[in-house]
């Protein structure tokens, strides 16, 4: 239809002189009529409340949104306190909780697949994006704590790499969460004591360490993880670990337990 219109326009306003006419007749099979770019205008438009919504689009989204909200806002547990990741200490209740439940829920799957146990868990403080507020807990809480698609991975680390891991934790000056490990630092952040499951670490042994894919791939500078062997992706998102734990637990009551302390003198 558009082409027809073009034809009509051309037809009506044509004014050909002889030479261009011959040119066109001879070459129009091969050559496009040339067009020239003479002006470009660029701008960006903000999408805000000054624009009205397309009711069809809004109507299409609504049932999906309602389903998600209904699901995310259903109460799945109750928290007795406010557990924020914000701290000046090296340990947070929510960090310990996340590392501990990662062990608790991942270990049975890992053991079933490999016959081995997870010896320790290491996560990163920066990955905890929100706390658990006092009161009702919903799946949305888990999305706020962990908006990323990080999944649990397990890798075998030799004693040398376990040393690097402990060194990393001691120097990071952050409340990086871990489970089954106990660390005591002096006032200059030197390691005084490092225990695994309450016992001294045997650096001649190999340990199965659980973390998340982001850190395994060098995120937050935890480069020691990639040096490990027998990489195993559990295909279990950390957020789902959290949701699954909330679902099977009525009341969340967390505390720190001095697993990571720095001496003040």
């Amino acid at each position, binding site marked *: 239809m*558009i*082409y027809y219109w*073009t*034809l009509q*326009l*051309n*037809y*009506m*306003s*044509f*004014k*050909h002189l002889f030479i261009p*006419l011959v040119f*066109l*007749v001879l070459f*129009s*099979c*091969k*050559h*496009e*009529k*040339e*067009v*020239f*770019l*003479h*002006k*470009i*205008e*660029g*701008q*960006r*438009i*903000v*999408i*805000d*409340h000054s*624009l*009205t*919504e*397309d*009711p*069809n*689009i*809004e109507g*299409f*989204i609504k049932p*999906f*949104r309602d*389903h*998600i909200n209904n*699901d*995310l806002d259903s109460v799945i547990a109750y928290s007795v306190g406010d557990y924020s990741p914000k701290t000046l200490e090296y340990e947070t209740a929510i960090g310990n909780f996340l590392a501990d439940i990662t062990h608790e829920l991942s270990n049975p799957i890992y053991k079933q697949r490999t016959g081995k146990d997870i010896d320790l868990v290491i996560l990163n403080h920066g990955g905890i994006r929100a706390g658990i507020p006092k009161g009702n807990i919903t799946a949305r809480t888990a*999305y706020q704590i962990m908006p990323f*698609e990080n999944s649990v991975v397990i890798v075998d680390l030799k004693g040398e790499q376990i040393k690097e891991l402990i060194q990393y934790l001691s120097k990071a000056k952050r409340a990086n969460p871990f489970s089954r490990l106990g660390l005591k630092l002096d006032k200059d952040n030197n390691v005084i004591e490092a225990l695994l499951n309450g016992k001294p670490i045997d650096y001649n042994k190999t340990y199965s360490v659980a973390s998340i*894919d982001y850190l395994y*791939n*060098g995120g937050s500078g935890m480069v020691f993880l990639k040096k490990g062997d027998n990489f195993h*992706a559990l295909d279990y998102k950390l957020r789902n670990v959290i949701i699954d734990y909330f679902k099977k637990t009525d009341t969340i009551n967390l505390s720190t337990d001095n697993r990571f302390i720095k001496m003040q003198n």
Partner: protein
Amino acid sequence: MKRRSFIQQTATAASLITLGGLSVSSLSSINSTKITILHTNDVHSHIDPIGPNDPRNANKGGIARRAKLIEAFRKENPNTLLLDAGDIFQGTPYFNYYGGELEFKLMSMLKYDAATIGNHDFDNGIGGLYAQLPHANFDFISANYDFSNTVMNTHVKPYKIFEKGGIKIGVFGVGIKLKGLVEKRLYKETVYLDPIEIAQDMSSVLKHEEHCDLVICLSHLGYHYKNAAEKASDLNLAKATKDIDLIIGGHTHTFLPKPTIAQNINGDNVLVNQVGCYGLYLGKIDFYLDSDKTKSANGTTIIV
């Protein structure tokens, strides 16, 4: 292209009989066309507007509003293309719940013409992207990802040519290096090819073999990397190529208040644009073309 030639021939033949009585003065208005390019990038599953408590972008965005705006621009100029520069997926529970189905369905309702593939579009694996393709009524274009040994084979084109108002617009796509950014188990056998070399090749094909009037690069390389200046980016791509009129970028979530005017290898101007992320903004570039060369005698005027 053949169709246009046909029209010109027919028009010429018709003009033979009517030659006598027509005025000369109307020539310049015969082929005056405006092409509008609308674009988004890194929408990251942001279907609803940002919440009211967000410190920076409270109440901005929302696809239902974007739809209305796009509709208005299309009404104003039917010769409009709507493009997305990748990272359609990931960022809200909509993706976690529906795997991208909703994003593709909505983009189809908004009549997107094409999108390129961002690193996060692999987040449910290449199989997860493939599974959502039936919901997309638009093309995926990427010239530097070789999908031959993946399920995406034949489902992604290196480029696509659109004809709007008699103007041929060639759009090709380039994507970022996946190794180190996306896990191998997600992108599987997708092969990353040098985007700059591919862009040099694509722009030549589109300009000289396909005779496109406008060449657009849809990129998910990122605008520019301060700490890795040599890394493939939109600004580096602009510098190393020719015959590209517009680079629409993504990945770095760069909020350009207005398009950047860069210079290509020949010193000609190339527009580079990116509109941040999350559907907070819509980019709009209007190209004015004319068969009358005198209008561009002093070069192309760029108003940004």
